[in-house]
């Protein structure tokens, strides 16, 4: 009749341990999935920040007598730029429902002249944003070209 007596303590402990490991693994996996989803959402925000500045660059009037600030030449390494009103050298990457900025980043603008045979005023413009989220660094950049309207 010993066979009907049930599982041994060791068997139960092994089973509980396996179930615990599987459960912990599942929860950790879902937590990682959440973190990745949040990172992807932030990347969407970062892309839009860079894209809106590239679009502004391409949309501004630019003549010999009127050079928009966004098209002014910078050092080759770029300079910090912000398109909001905070004047703290940062831009909001993610703003939550109560208006609090969850993640902020540094936007860098690089505008350099492009030499050409006819000496036209042509510039290469690059916007790059750097930000951190949960201890990891992220970067997104776009580059375009622009010629003077004159």
């Amino acid at each position: 009749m010993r066979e009907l007596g049930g599982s041994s303590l060791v068997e139960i402990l092994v089973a509980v341990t396996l179930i615990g490991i599987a459960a912990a693994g599942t929860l950790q996996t879902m937590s990682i999935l959440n973190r990745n989803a949040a990172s992807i959402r932030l990347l969407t925000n970062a892309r839009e920040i860079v894209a809106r500045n590239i679009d502004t660059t391409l949309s501004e009037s630019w003549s010999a007598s009127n050079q928009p600030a966004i098209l002014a030449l910078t050092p080759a390494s770029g300079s910090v730029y912000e398109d909001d009103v905070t004047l703290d050298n940062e831009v909001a990457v993610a703003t939550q429902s109560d208006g609090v900025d969850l993640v902020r980043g540094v936007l860098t603008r690089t505008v350099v002249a492009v030499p050409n045979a006819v000496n036209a005023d042509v510039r290469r413009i690059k916007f790059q944003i750097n930000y951190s989220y949960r201890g990891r660094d992220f970067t997104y950049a776009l580059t375009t070209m622009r010629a003077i309207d004159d």
Partner: protein
Amino acid sequence: MKTNGLASRSAFTLAEVAVGMAVGIIAGTMALSYMRTSAILLAKNISANRSNNTLRNAIDSMGDRLHGALTMPVLIDTTGSVVSSLPANGTVGDSQPAAGVFYDRLIGDPYVLIHPGGAGLLASDSSVSLKRSISPYASPPIPAPGDVLLIESAPAEMRPRVATVNAGAVNGNVQTIALTFTSSLGSAISWSVSRPKVARLVHREALLVMPSGTRRELRRYPTFEPMPSLNDSTKYSVISNEIGSQGAEETPFYLTTTNAFENKLFKLDLRVRVIGYERVLATKEANQFSAFMRVQTVIPIRSRPK
């Protein structure tokens, strides 16, 4: 006397039952806690992905249409009325935010008007003939009823709306088309026979955030001239029904002037709140982190905005 060998196992002692119940309760609580945590994580994950997907889909859908806008979008409210709140000329700043915009989407150009004789088209004329190229390299489409023909004229551009279309014969790479308008021109359009008069074809569309129950919908009205009944569901398609309904979330569109030369940009401040897990996540996420998403961006239009 024979005895039943199982008699000693026929029941549990009170202590055994108590221990068994305690172990069962602990195991059950752990299992429920695990399932609850899993459900919350799953709800957060779905909400985070959906809010991202909803927002990107909305921006891409609007961008797809607005990239074809021939002129700067015009801000409107939920009645379709124009919101005239642009910054004064020469000033830098944002307009008042609005619930929607309408814009003329370019269908095709150029169309060459056939001179009707005399000085040109009369104010009482309600039809015109024109030619279009059918070359595979440049072939604006045949106009359709509801399209609007933009004809440069002084003092203002004319915009007669097409009522009927009669596509005529093809001669080489050119097709002649007769159009009738929904009304007479109202003003004469004069030009010399020796100079071609060209027109462009547009179609007025609108994007509008409208209330729908307790929430807001971002709708696209494919025909906005004349303005349709805004709540007739056959007149619009829903881009997203997950637009927030708190404060400024109802008015995501605005224009901004960027310098003293009156450059204007069309800007979007779009905020979405996904539907489905509001109760589950009500107290489980700070600032509605997973279910809420906001993007501020610029949508360029076809012609450089000025």
